[in-house]
């Protein structure tokens, strides 16, 4: 409820949530919004600029709410053999809009899953370390220091390189999320631990303990709620960071493989000079990441402000 109340008060939060909602909604509805499948090659039109290709003699009116050859509903299309490429096509004549939206599923899903994993592990480890203290705290914190000090991107490269060759795209996505998430638990754990250390010494916690409340009850009722704000802020910061990690891995060929789209393997084309200087629409996946990052970072800022205002 506090989040809703805060959102009413704070335009930034509303705007960030609206932006993220739009991006995630578009990505979820990729199959409907995009006129073609992301892996479908149209070898007649490699690197077609945005517009309608193969429209001869024309005209080629855009038709709304249509069904494709396989009977799937699409928001818009043009009559074959013409093709509509709203964001142009890539080297194989694949629709960039379809790949951008479907690729967003992979990149955002990897970011969200990895953030959830990092946060979940970090929350548990931080809460246990902070509340229990003693040798367990020392072990967990030394481990967290080790993980914070790790050059995680290189660690990801190394771990990904050891994985078997034959990994289906779905498994690859889960593996990437797992690797990124496992490598990133330390920072949220240390932040949660700090909050727990502070919370467990507060008067009402000591009172609850004096009245004979169990450790589980104290943690659940009095301590962990104090960490929600930190966890939400961390989540808003970790998601874009992990989206970028997935993009980096896929850019370097270590993420999901072709023909499955991700923002990273779409951007890989830009590593070639001729693409960079000749086909401006190939830059669009990079541009698409900007609102996502802005949205999440604005969300993190708004959550911090909300925490301050409502005392979380």
């Amino acid at each position, binding site marked *: 409820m506090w989040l809703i109340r805060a959102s009413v008060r704070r335009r930034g939060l509303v705007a960030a949530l609206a932006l993220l909602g739009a991006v995630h909604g578009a990505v979820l509805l990729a199959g409907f919004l995009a006129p073609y499948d992301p892996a479908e090659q149209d*070898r007649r039109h*490699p690197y077609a600029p945005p517009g309608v290709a193969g429209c001869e003699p024309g005209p080629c009116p855009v038709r709304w709410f249509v069904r494709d050859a396989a009977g799937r509903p699409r928001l818009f299309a043009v009559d074959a053999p013409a093709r509509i490429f709203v964001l142009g096509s890539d080297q*194989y004549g694949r629709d960039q809009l379809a790949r951008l939206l479907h690729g967003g599923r992979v990149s955002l899903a990897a970011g969200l899953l990895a953030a959830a994993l990092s946060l979940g592990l970090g929350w548990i480890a931080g809460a246990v370390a902070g509340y229990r203290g003693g040798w367990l705290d020392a072990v967990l914190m030394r481990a967290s220091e080790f993980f914070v000090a790790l050059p995680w991107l290189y660690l990801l490269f190394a771990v990904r390189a050891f994985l078997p*060759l*034959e990994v289906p795209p779905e498994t690859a996505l889960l593996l990437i999320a797992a690797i990124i998430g496992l490598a990133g638990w330390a920072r949220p754990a240390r932040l949660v631990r700090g909050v727990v250390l502070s919370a467990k010494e507060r008067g009402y916690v000591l009172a609850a303990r004096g009245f004979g409340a169990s450790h589980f009850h104290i943690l659940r009722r009095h301590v962990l709620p104090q960490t929600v704000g930190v966890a939400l802020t961390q989540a808003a910061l970790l998601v874009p960071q992990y989206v970028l990690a997935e993009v980096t891995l896929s850019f370097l060929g270590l993420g999901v*493989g*072709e023909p499955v789209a991700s923002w990273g393997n779409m951007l890989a084309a830009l590593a070639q*000079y001729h693409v960079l200087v*000749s086909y401006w629409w190939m830059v669009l996946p990079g541009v698409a990441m900007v609102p996502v990052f802005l949205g999440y970072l604005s969300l993190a800022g708004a959550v911090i402000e909300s925490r301050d205002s409502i005392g979380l």
Partner: protein
Amino acid sequence: MTWVRATLFACVVLPAAAAAQNLATASEPGSRGGRLVCAQRAEPKTLNPVLASDIASREVIHRMMGDLVHINRGTHATEPALATHWTISPDGRRFTLRLRRGVRFSDGHPFDADDVLFTFEVYLDPQLHSPQRDLLMVAGKPLSVRKQDSHTVVFETAAPYAPAERLFDSIAMLPRHLLEKPYREGRLAKVWNLNTPPAEIAGLGPFRLKEYAAGQHVVLERNPYYWKVDRAGTRLPYLDALLFVFVSGEDAQIMRFEAGETDVIGRVGARNFAALEKGQGGRGYALRDLGPSLEYNFLAFNLNDLAGRNLPRVEARQAWFREERFRQAVSAAVDREAIVKLVYGGHGTALWGHVTPGNRNWVHPGLATPPRSLDRARGLLKSAGYSWDGQGTLVDPGGSKVEFTIAASSSSAERGQIAAVVQEDLRQVGMRVRVVPLEFRALLDRLFQSRDFDAVLLGLGGGDADPAAEMNVWLSGGGTHLWDLGRTRPATPWEAEIDSLMNRQLITMRVAERKRLYARVQELVGAYLPVVPLASPHVLVGAKTGLGNFRPAVLDHYTLWNVEELYWRGRAAAGSR
């Protein structure tokens, strides 16, 4: 006189070449002066021709060194160089070479037969591990060399070797007066490195070392003692200097060339070539598409004997890969023209055999080139007992879905792109293919060590045009028989026939007969498809428009092979540089 003619009349002792004081017959007389700036992707590792194995080192060294017999990159035939002519004994084992008289090293010291003997002693020394040593072994034994007189040397091979003259190309003649002492003292591997003073390095090539600046450039200057002259009697080379600047990465090289900072660019990628074409008119450079290179890209399935390697998954799939109709179906399903269009932007050639049209002397012109046909592919698979399930996935006779991986080097964008096209083509006949980009060393490790791969996309054939260069690839026991390494005997009758044909062509002295034998090899490869040939990239180069005698070739040393003949047209051009 060409290698072709020399071998045609091998049964008689034959003076091989035109006297050939002047070899630049196809070239226009030029004018002296100016320098040429070329980009190199890496710094040379050494200036020692005996040990150089990297492209960057060889590129510089070959401009400073001379060889006895040279392969003309334009004609693909041998021509006299430091040897003016040669004779071949009737049994094809003994070669008598007459050396050019009056030749001097770049430090002014005369060259004679003792330098030749010393050179081959060094190259054949097993202690030095020269990369060229293997090339000088025939039938497992090294060439023997002896001096007949101060300007005549006799080489003998252990067995007849048809392309023997080609062995002498790129074997740099070494100055005995400079290198014998360090060689006898066991220090040869340590001399002629990048820190050696220029005065201590001498060769018989058109240029000599002037300056090396670490991380920046190598400057070569005109060799005033170079032996070659043009039609007008002017001593070559025309250029005063040759500057190699180090620019890592093709994209950076493209930018430097486009900006006019370098004068020549070789082996441009097809897509970058298209980007350069836009500025061709106004920026003072011209681009050339020389047609197909000798490189052939192919899809190879894992046909290795995997017994004892604990690779059950790959072994199970080998039942598909060993089926000829399966490989033929893959070949029929692949859209080679799409590869040419999408990957090479039209600057490539579709292949149905392993010899590219760029190898004009040896390509089999009658080789079948069937167009892509999904119906034929499905028919072949059906005849081999394959079927399709409800989702259209191909199912083998045992009921397993046909799924496999294609590994490709992550360092080659073009091969990754070819793999993506093949992946989509094979999907259309129900095969589920995953493309796996692998770091090149990891890929080689899987090919040569673990053999843990299903299929791999590779390219071969950047060396010499002669079929002898392909022996290691096509013999069953060859070290580059990548799809089935380590065989002691051929696995099938048609592979036994390929072995026999390759061995016979190597010792057959009649060129027409060699061509017939090698054409049959191409037919067998095209029919049984131990590898599925896909496409050959074109050799794409560029140079400033003012550069005279620029005659790039599809063989190695693509742009600078005739560097001694290059010159800047017009005084202004020369003077400005």
